[in-house]
Each structure stands twice: as C-alpha cells, then as structure tokens.
C-alpha cells in the first residue's frame, strides 16, 4: 500500500526521536561502531602504507639491456623502437657507453675511481644499452623474455645481455606479495569482526524494545509502519558513528605523518598522504557503517514483528 508523504516524514522524525530518546543505548551502539571502524581504519591505513612501501621497492625494478659492442646507430634505433612497442613497457631510455661509465664511476669508492681513468672516449670498453621501465614491475620476467625474442628474430643478434636482477627480483616480489596479502587478510578479518560487534550491539538495543514493538502491533500498526523508524535510526547511528570515527582517524593520521616527518625526521619513509588515501578509507568506513546500521536494525526488528 502506498505510503503518504506525511507518513514518510513522520517515520524520519520518529527515527531521529528514537536516537535522542534512547540516550544511552544509542550512545552504546554508536560507540561500538566508532571503535570497531576505527580499528578497521587503522589497519587499512597501515596496509596501504605497507603497500606503498612495497610499490616503491618494486618500482626500482627495471630491465637493463646491453647491446653488442659496436652496434650501428640505425640498429640501436630499431631495437629501441621494437622494445618500446611491447605493451607492458612504459618507457625506454638509451644509455650510451659514456653514460654507463659515468654511472659506474659514481658507484665506485674514492680510492678506486682512479682505476677507471683512462677508459674514457674511444677506450671505453662498455657496451651501449637501454633502461627499460615497466608499468607493472611484476611483469619483469615476461618482458625480459619478449626482449630476448626480439633479439632472436634478428639475424644480427644485436643484444648481448638482458639483465633485471634475476633471482633477487623474484624474491622481492614474493615478500611484497606476502606482505600485501597479509594486510588484506587482517583488514577482511577486522571487517567481519566489526560487523559482528555492531550487529550484536544493535540487536541488544532492539531487544530492549521488543515490548514496544508488541504494543505497536496491538494498536494496529503494520509491520512496515513499525520498521521504518528503526530503519531511519539504523542509518543515523551508522552514519553518525562512522563519520565520527573517520574524522578522528584521519585527523590523527595527518598529525601523525606531520610529527613523524618533521619531529622524528623520518623523511626517508614516504607515507601515504591523507589526500591520497583519506577518501578511500573514509568512504569505506561511511558505507560500511551505514550498511551495518541498517542491516542491524532491519534484521533485529524482523525477528520481533511476528507477534
């Protein structure tokens, strides 16, 4: 049966009234939402920072391609173009043998730098090469194989070596993936725990009102008439609780980053900024909190409507 608009307003008004007049019970259910979503949020931020750190490690992975000594410029351009055409490749940088020597010199100790003197210019024994940067560092092995395939299909075999830290890279990925999965499992586990905690609290508040639901039915209220204000109440408690939780969390997080970077001087660690992750974390918390509020009230009311 269609509901009058004035009745809808009545339900919304009544939902607000329920929250304020139930005082302590509303505070208790809001409190359980605040606390459990806060814990969830903390671990989400932690997981995202670990993820970012893992990304930083992975992004250092790139492929170094060495060409045969004395490869012609035309051949160099052709290989450059062919590698650039691989879909997974983000960019190819030509590293001349002079650049190579410079890099090598920089890496040497002061004492040993002299050992490299005299190899400049025509005496340079190093090969020309490319630095190949990838969109997804985890594809490094696959791309390296494609580059070798380019070499194999060329009669001149212009590439002498494809180097991407074989062995070490695989180990790095195994660790970063494990860390990521661990974070995901913890966050998922906490989400389930939050759901359980919140639904228990909300059920308790409605258990208290079992008698009231019975009275409403005796006065001739339909099930949907009874359900609506509870539904509104669930939204309000869920939304209110998660908003408070998200605000406190993000405020705390931003001041934590600031003090970690300036006071403790942890400049080297690049934290995920609030702008970067705040929207996602707050959004997840608000949606989850609201859904839990609604779910808790709807499920519990249904149980007592069969009077």
């Amino acid at each position: 049966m269609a509901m009058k608009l004035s009745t809808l307003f009545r339900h919304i008004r009544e939902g607000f009234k329920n929250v304020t007049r139930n005082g302590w019970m509303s505070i208790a259910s809001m409190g359980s939402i605040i606390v459990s979503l806060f814990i969830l949020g903390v671990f989400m931020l932690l997981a995202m920072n670990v993820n970012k750190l893992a990304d930083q490690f992975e992004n250092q992975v790139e492929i170094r391609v060495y060409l045969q000594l004395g490869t012609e410029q035309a051949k160099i351009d052709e290989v450059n173009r062919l590698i650039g055409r691989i879909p997974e490749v983000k960019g190819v940088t030509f590293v001349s043998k002079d650049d190579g020597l410079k890099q090598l010199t920089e890496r040497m100790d002061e004492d040993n730098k002299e050992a490299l003197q005299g190899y400049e210019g025509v005496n340079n024994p190093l090969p020309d090469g490319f630095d190949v940067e990838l969109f997804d560092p985890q594809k490094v092995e696959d791309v390296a194989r494609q580059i070798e395939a380019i070499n194999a299909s060329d009669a001149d075999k212009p590439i002498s070596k494809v180097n991407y830290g074989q062995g070490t890279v695989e180990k790095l990925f195994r660790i970063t993936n494990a860390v990521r999965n661990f974070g995901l499992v913890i966050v998922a586990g906490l989400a389930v725990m939050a759901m359980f905690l919140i639904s228990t609290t909300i059920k308790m508040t409605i258990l208290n009102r079992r008698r009231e639901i019975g009275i409403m039915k005796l006065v001739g209220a339909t099930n949907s008439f009874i359900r609506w204000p509870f539904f509104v109440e669930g939204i309000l408690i869920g939304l209110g609780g998660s908003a408070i939780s998200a605000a406190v969390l993000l405020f705390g997080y931003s001041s934590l980053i600031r003090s970690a970077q300036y006071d403790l001087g942890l400049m080297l660690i690049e934290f995920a900024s609030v702008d970067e992750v705040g929207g996602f974390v707050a959004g997840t918390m608000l949606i989850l909190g609201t859904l839990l509020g609604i779910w808790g009230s709807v499920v519990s009311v249904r149980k007592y409507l069969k009077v």
Partner: protein
Amino acid sequence: MIEMHDVWKTYPDGTTALRGVSVVIDRNDFVYVVGPSGAGKSTFMKLIYREEVPTKGQLSVNGFNIGKLRQRKIPYVRRNIGVVFQDYRLLPKLTAYENIAFAMEVIEASKRSIRRRTMEVLELVGLKHKASSFPSQLSGGEQQRIAIARAIVNNPSVIVADEPTGNLDPETSWGIMKLMEEIHYRGTTIVMATHNKEIVNSMRKRVIAIENGTIVRDEQRGEYGYEA
C-alpha cells in the same frame, strides 16, 4: 458484532483454555467477563483482538472471520478494536500525547485531525494538563486513562479491557469505571474481564462467567458470584 460458535482453544503446550464457547455480544453491549484465575478469561479476550487464533470453531468480530484472517490483514482488524490492559502498555519513550497520537498516525490521519482528536480525548479522560508527561511521570490511574484515550481515539466499535482496574486502588478504579460507562454511553461496545466484585455488583451489566473453559452463566444485570 462479536460472535463465537463452539470455539475451542488448545495451546501448543497441550493446555486447553476454552472448550466449546458460543456467545453473541451485540452492538453497544457492556459485558463483564468473570471467573476464577486460569479459567480461560484471558484467552477469551485475546481471541477477540486476534492475539490468539481459535483451534476450532467460528469466531467473527465486526464481520471479519478471525480464524481465517490473513496475517497481513490483522492490523486493519485491530484498528477497529480498542484494547486496554491491566499493565497499561504505553510506549515508554513517548509522551501521553504522543502515545495517543500514535494510534492515529498508524491509520495515516492528517496532522490537523490528529491534533484535534487527541486533545479531545485527552480532555475526555481529564488529563489535558499531562499531555507532555512521559508514562513514568504519571500515576497508575493516569496511565490507564491515557491507555483508554488511546483505545478510543479512532472511534472503535468495541473496547476490549483485560482487568483494567487490576492494579489500581478502589477510588481510582471507580474513576476508570465512570470513564468506561461514559464511553459506553457514547455508543461503544465494551467487553471487560474483571476480578472486581464491588464494581460488578454495583454497576450492573451483563455478566458472562467462564469456568474451566466453558461459559457457566450469562445473565443481564448479573452479579459477580464469587468471593472476592
């Protein structure tokens, strides 16, 4: 108005509360239902407002066949029956005014008519000045008056009252009975279960006595007939 025909009621635990009750209560009757505790009075009352369903037999209230009523239709039948209980059953988080208005919000009455009619019945029960009090701030007699106001606010054809004076002192009980008589006088059928000997014997009405699940006595202007 209310017609029972060979009505039986057996609860799931096996106790049989009513054994073949047949009775007709006409429009504008005023009936006391008396009898010892556990004789079946409460079951008799609960069947009328469809809190229980008869196990066997015919029961109709206001033309609705209560035994065959669909779950979804129950609220609409109850809107035409005002119920009053020994323990008042007011909504504790609502004020006196809101408790009465609730019954009209349920039928989606307009805001203006809710306001007018609620004030009207508050005046009738003499508690206009307590409109914004919560049940916990009212005495037992006042709470029962509010419950009665709620029961009559939608002008039901019948009031079912299960020991409405059971928790009240004699003086307050008389006030409640005056109110019931006033409501009856305005054209409402009243079915009232009671243990109150003085009331039954001095405010003479039809008396239905139930013992051991059957009607043992049904007389106009009857007596209570039991030791109080």
